């Protein structure tokens, strides 16, 4: 009698533990923290600080960021309704151009960073999706709120959107791309992205 009771308790416990382990709290936040720490380590590496190492440093940072960011998902969400109409080649090309655009916009900000510390303010997990809140304290004692939206693929959480001070990246580009495509065409959007990338 007692044995069956113990067995039941044991089964119940293992069930609870079995359920909670895959949904281990802190996973998306931890993975994001690792990526950020790697980028910070590259930025503060004295061996990479000289002028002629700029390109090398950029490539190193990009490699780290690539592991955490799902560029295709970001591009897909930004193009929204127009994504389905594109051919696989066009999708690939667009993802590449979109990545280049983000690189141009954010690389300078990352490289010229002047923040004091980054505080991780918790996460909200909902199935395969999670939002991680981060607060960046700048050298001028201001705070910048950043929220990462991540999605789980296998054991890794990939960023597909981020929101800075309440302004979302995907939402911003979705509105802009939609306007350009409706006013002219998808080809025009690609042309604009290409000319922008050659300017740099």
């Amino acid at each position: 009698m007692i044995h069956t009771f113990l067995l039941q308790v044991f089964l119940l416990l293992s069930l609870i533990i079995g359920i909670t382990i895959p949904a281990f709290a802190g996973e998306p936040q931890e993975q994001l923290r690792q990526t950020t720490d790697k980028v910070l380590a590259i930025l503060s590496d004295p061996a990479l600080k000289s002028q002629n190492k700029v390109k090398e440093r950029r490539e190193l940072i990009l490699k780290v960021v690539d592991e955490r960011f799902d560029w295709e998902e970001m591009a897909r969400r930004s193009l929204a309704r127009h994504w389905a109409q594109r051919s696989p080649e066009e999708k690939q090309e667009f993802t590449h151009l979109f990545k280049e655009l983000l690189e141009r916009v954010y690389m300078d900000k990352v490289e010229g960073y002047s923040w004091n510390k980054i505080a991780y303010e918790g996460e909200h997990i909902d199935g395969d999706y999670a939002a991680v809140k981060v607060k960046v304290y700048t050298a001028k004692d201001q705070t910048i709120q950043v929220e990462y939206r991540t999605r789980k693929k296998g054991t890794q959480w990939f960023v597909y959107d981020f929101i800075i001070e309440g302004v979302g990246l995907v939402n911003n580009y979705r509105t802009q791309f939609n306007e350009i495509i409706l006013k002219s065409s998808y080809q025009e959007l690609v042309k604009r992205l290409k000319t922008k990338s050659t300017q740099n």
Partner: protein
Amino acid sequence: MKKYNIELAVGLFVLAGIFCLGYLSIKLGKMEIVGGKGYEIYATFSNSGGVKQGSNIVIAGVEVGRVKSISLENYQARIVLSLIQGVKIQEDAIASIKTKGLVGEKYIEITPGGSEKFISPGGRIRETQSSVDLEELISKLVFEKI
């Protein structure tokens, strides 16, 4: 007999008046008597930013529904959106709280997504953006410049 006729006319007139008042209050109050045709979905925002019950929900500037209720859930604002039938919302659509003009009323804008999956009645819009505090943003910009 004549007196009776006058009383009947007055009674009918009063009844008509009450009916008009009722109609007006329903129209102006934007109430729905028989539930209305439509469906509900919900979204959680970290800040409702002044959206009220009855606030507009728009897609591309076209009204597609109204805010049914706002409540606090887990220290976040849970907003129930009542949408008109036939308007399908993709699973990756983004709901954001916006302001009409600089100081106008708040409304919720839905930016359609590209997913083939649609949110079923009672479902949730996962991607949300709370209202942007313009004043705060401007002050940040100003102080950054100095």
